[in-house]
């Protein structure tokens, strides 16, 4: 097709892309209200939502574990990643480049490599697989995202702001707490959000480092998909999509930092 009319081609592509993204999700939503167990419409019902909310204790237990890991991993990753980003930005080190590359490495490695190396590493040092090993793995792959978000924010404002603080008599500690941290607050929030999302979402790495009794939500979903599809998963999908949308609305202010990656 020749894009004669202004934007016709791009309009079409955007609609195709959006349809591609949303049709599957809409179909899932539609069938989550289906009374039948199969993918044939047999009348509306909230049956699967009832099953999800009232009769799926294992699922909610796995959700609780996911939340626990997401909270702890995102807190620790944000702490370590932010301090590191500030340190590397603020001071001149000879090893600056080495540390930066090392920090960004998890972004470049395929997830499966991370998963396999963690599994072998944990078994080598004798750390039992479980919630703690998942926490370590998640923190490690969240740190580079925190680092990037924070560095982008630090790059955004002029270094002379920090010099101004020194000039006005501030000690290093005051500069950190009264100038740098407040200026970086949106980036810190974005880091927490991004880390928590990544942690909640991760399947592959968790798959390798999880042990008995540490089934997270993605692992639970995986086993649901793998071993006998129950329409409960349709209802769960809708709940998760709606939850995601709500979080996205609440945090749209932070998109700018999340996207920079």
């Amino acid at each position, binding site marked *: 097709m020749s894009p004669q009319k202004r934007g016709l081609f791009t309009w079409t592509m955007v609609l195709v892309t959006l349809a591609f993204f949303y049709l599957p999700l809409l179909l899932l939503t539609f069938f989550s209200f289906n009374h039948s167990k199969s993918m044939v419409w047999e009348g509306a019902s909230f049956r699967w939502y009832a099953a999800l909310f009232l009769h799926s204790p294992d699922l909610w237990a796995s959700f609780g574990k996911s939340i626990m890991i997401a909270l702890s991993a995102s807190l620790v990753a944000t702490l370590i990643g932010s301090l590191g980003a500030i340190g590397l930005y603020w001071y001149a080190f000879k090893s600056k480049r080495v540390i930066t590359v090392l*920090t960004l490495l998890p972004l470049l490695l395929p997830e499966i490599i991370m998963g396999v190396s963690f599994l*072998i590493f944990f078994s080598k040092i004798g750390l039992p697989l479980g919630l703690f090993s998942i926490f370590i793995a998640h923190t490690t792959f969240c740190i580079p995202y925190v680092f990037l978000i924070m560095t982008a924010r630090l790059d955004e404002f002029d270094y002379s702001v920090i010099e101004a603080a020194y000039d006005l008599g501030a000690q290093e500690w005051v500069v950190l707490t009264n100038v740098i941290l407040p200026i970086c607050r949106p980036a810190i929030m974005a880091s927490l959000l991004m880390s928590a999302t990544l942690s909640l979402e991760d399947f592959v790495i968790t798959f390798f480092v999880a042990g008995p009794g540490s089934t997270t939500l993605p692992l639970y979903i995986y086993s649901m998909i793998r071993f006998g599809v129950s329409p409960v998963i349709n209802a769960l999908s809708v709940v998760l999509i709606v939850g995601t949308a709500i979080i996205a609305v609440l945090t749209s202010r932070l998109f700018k930092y999340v996207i920079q990656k």
Partner: protein
Amino acid sequence: MKSRSGYAYIAPLSLWMGLLLLAPIGIILSYSFLKRGLYGGVSNQITLEAYQQLWSPLYAKVFLNTLLLSGIATVIMILMAIPTAYFMARSKRKTLWLFLIIIPFWTNFLIRIYAWIAILGNNGIVNQCLLRVGWIDQPLRLLYNPLSVILVLVYTYLPFAILPLFSTIEKFDFSLLEAARDLGATRFQAFYKVLIPAIKSGIFSALLFCFIPAFGQYAVPALVGDSRSYMMGNIIARELTITRNWPLSAAISTLLTLATLFALMVFVIQGSRPARVKPIE
């Protein structure tokens, strides 16, 4: 400035990444040179056995297969992402469009895969409909083939292509396109000769963000693929957990890592090269 207190800031980061990232990667590398243990694990004996095992047509086929599937998926993603990102960047409602891309992006990865299983599976929506209206007697095998792997890869990683392209195109000075039109270029020429070279770095980072996860994929082929669409990630997992040949698993991991780093180098070098300016014919 003063660098002594600087170490306090970077110490946790360096320690964490050194102990919990570098050490595991080092261990996996060293395992690939060890002899296989009797009941899984390794014995302390240096050998190239794992790499010799790797040197076989079977693994070469898996490697090429992985390259092909992830390559095709990446090309499709870029081709879809450029016009979409361009449209978003020129729109007055950027936040709305971003929003519409971010929601599927943040929706659980497995749910996104599952959506296609629900649609294309043997008991999925399409097959059930076709059976109902009587066009077919047997469910079609729409899933568990290389095409479905590509489809789902595109579905799951497309936002990774759109977002970096969007942020690059957003910084593009659109009046350059008008200047090109003014100088006699057609709309397509203006796009191809002015926009594309200017957003080259965005295209390469999109390539990177799509290709690396697709190339090292495990979950998608495991859920919607069959033995023909096995990728290296699946072989690594199989050797690790089922065959329990850890050195071989480590050797494939090493190979996958090297291939990824190679792709990364090519993309980074290509992406950072200044765009050549060609006159418009």
